[in-house]
């Protein structure tokens, strides 16, 4: 676009016109003036050509020489030259002056249509550009003077119109104006803004936001590098920042710390991109003060920590009294304090059992609290699920044997390892096995299967136990839900085990559900983990 205008000599006109900007001419007046000037100029060119004998069609070497003496070749006289050559050629063609000129003029119009449109499109909307283009073409054609005007005049009218359009566009959208707009935005922005040269790293321009944030005045900063002012608190950050900028041409929301003039630090989000100003590659950077946000984040983290502390302290306090309860009832039961009669034994057993429940409950309440507040921290490593299940099954074997249950694990060869928290996954399997054993009558069986389905590992814990009714299946994984049945009452759990399992599996991006054909028909707990 620039070259196009330079080619047409418009840049010179533009800079000439821009001088007028110093005076408080309004833009419209300036535009009209400039167009008049151009028109007059062209009219003089026309007159010159006419007087040179050009109009009388003596298109020979003498005329040409005469004209070139009169009109030195320049962008402004280009139309005349073009016209001259067109006439020369047309006379060579021998089609007759008038017909040929008309034809060629209309050819110029055809060529002008995309040209005008494209130029307009650079700065105007599609609709307006089209309108101007149509006016530019139709205007001169429909002009009645076409029939009265001499041919050369008609030709000029086209150029005048084109130049009119171009100049007005230029005036409306001159660089100065956009520079002004940029400058206004630059200085009024509430953020730190600075322009630095890429070549020597010196600061070219800063805005008020910069002075406000860092404490350096404009005069103190311009001409110095950021290193001289030691603005970057962390030199590593600076290196990363400039490498990224070099690599991608821009950096967005880079979090770093800057040093103020008084030495205090300020946290900022820094963004930058390379721009070209007066043919020099520069960096335009914008930084936003996020100290407050940072402080708020810190506060939130602190609150989080407090909450964590509170949770662990609470469980600690809840469990402390359980230590003597458990141990003393064990000592009583072992006969360390003398033999107990049957009733006493049962009473102490009850104390012991309930102590155990309370212990499990406090552990699981903490777990649930962690899961509910997304604070469940997984220690991820490559784990062999098959090994984890084997261990869990071995742990639960004694419990199963007490009830004469067959407890088997059917694995697959070469289980692919996946990312997971071994201890937590083990807890899930133990929980599921515990449930299965609890709710399966004596001499039943519990089967654990591991399968690989596509990109997932599926674990089935299948029992021949009391099964589940349809209405209970949906509620099973909600905290504190307990199936209301005689067996369930007998083995009263915490009602949190499955909710914990669900939380752990979901933290692994897996799924857990239960299938049952109905009450008394056993149930199968299934969980799947993506292989990662």
């Amino acid at each position: 676009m620039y070259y196009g205008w330079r080619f047409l000599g418009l840049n010179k006109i533009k800079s000439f016109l821009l001088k007028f900007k110093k005076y408080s001419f309004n833009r419209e007046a300036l535009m009209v003036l400039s167009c008049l000037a151009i028109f007059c100029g062209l009219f003089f060119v026309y007159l010159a050509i006419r007087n040179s004998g050009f109009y009388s069609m003596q298109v020979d070497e003498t005329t040409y020489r005469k004209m070139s003496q009169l009109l030195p070749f320049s962008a402004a006289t280009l139309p005349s030259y073009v016209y001259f050559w067109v006439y020369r050629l047309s006379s060579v063609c021998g089609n007759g002056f008038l017909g040929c000129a008309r034809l060629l003029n209309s050819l110029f119009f055809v060529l002008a249509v995309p040209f005008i449109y494209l130029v307009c499109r650079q700065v105007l909307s599609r609709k307006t550009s089209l309108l101007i283009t149509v006016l530019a073409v139709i205007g001169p054609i429909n002009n009645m003077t076409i029939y009265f005007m001499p041919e050369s005049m008609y030709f000029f009218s086209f150029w005048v119109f084109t130049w009119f359009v171009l100049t007005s566009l230029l005036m409306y959208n001159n660089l100065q104006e956009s520079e002004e707009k940029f400058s206004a935005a630059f200085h009024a922005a509430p953020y730190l803004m600075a322009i630095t040269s890429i070549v020597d790293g010196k600061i070219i321009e800063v805005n008020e936001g910069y002075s406000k944030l860092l404490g350096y005045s404009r005069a103190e900063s311009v001409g110095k590098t950021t290193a001289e002012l030691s603005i970057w608190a962390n030199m590593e950050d600076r290196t990363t920042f400039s490498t990224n900028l070099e690599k991608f041409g821009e950096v967005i929301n880079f979090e770093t710390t800057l040093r103020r003039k008084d030495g205090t630090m300020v946290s900022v989000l820094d963004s930058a991109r390379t721009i070209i100003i007066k043919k020099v590659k520069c960096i335009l950077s914008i930084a936003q003060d996020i100290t407050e946000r940072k402080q708020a984040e810190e506060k939130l983290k602190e609150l989080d920590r407090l909450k964590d502390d509170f949770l662990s302290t609470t469980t600690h306090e809840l469990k402390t009294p359980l230590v003597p309860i458990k141990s003393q009832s064990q000592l009583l039961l072992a006969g360390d304090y003398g033999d107990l009669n049957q009733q006493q034994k049962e009473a102490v057993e009850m104390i012991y059992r309930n102590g155990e429940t309370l212990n499990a409950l406090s552990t699981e309440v903490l777990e649930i609290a962690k899961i509910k507040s997304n604070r469940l921290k997984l220690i991820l490593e490559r784990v062999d699920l098959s090994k984890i299940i084997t261990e869990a099954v071995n742990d639960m074997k004694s419990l199963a044997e007490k009830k004469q249950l067959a407890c088997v694990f059917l694995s697959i060869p070469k289980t692919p390892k996946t990312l997971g928290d071994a201890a937590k996954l083990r807890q899930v399997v133990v929980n599921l096995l515990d449930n299965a054993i609890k709710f399966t009558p004596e001499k039943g069986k519990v089967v654990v299967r591991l399968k690989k389905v596509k990109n997932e590992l599926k674990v089935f814990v299948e029992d021949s136990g009391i099964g589940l009714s349809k209405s209970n299946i949906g509620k099973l994984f909600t905290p504190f839900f307990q199936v209301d049945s005689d067996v369930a009452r007998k083995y009263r759990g915490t009602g949190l085990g499955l909710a914990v399992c669900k939380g752990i599996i979901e933290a692994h991006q897996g799924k857990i559900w239960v299938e049952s054909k109905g009450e008394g028909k056993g149930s199968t707990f299934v969980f799947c983990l993506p292989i990662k």
Partner: protein
Amino acid sequence: MTKGATKIKILHVDDEADTLGVVKTILEKEGYEVVSVLNGSRALKAVNLNGFSLILLDIMMPDMSGWDLFTRIAKIKPTYKVVFLSILEISEEKMKELKKAGVKDYIKKPFDRDDLIKRVKKALKS
């Protein structure tokens, strides 16, 4: 324990008197001599005075945490065997770290009587 032989001395540090009592009862039944102290500073004094074969440490205590106490004891008597006895849940990673630092075991409260005896014996043997 053969009669007449000097009893193996165990130091137990916990801020809960009831817990101290229970552990004392259980371990003394097994023939150990248990010295129970209620806080870290007293524990340090006791460590300086007597030759203990094993130290049982609680973690969450008001004056000095079990971790701090462990590092201090390790400085004074690096040969002492230390077993943590606490309610705090620790991750397997942390456990590995502790083993590297020289901690013999980590028993979780509320403990099982037989389990406690078994693990104390194991720690003493190591």
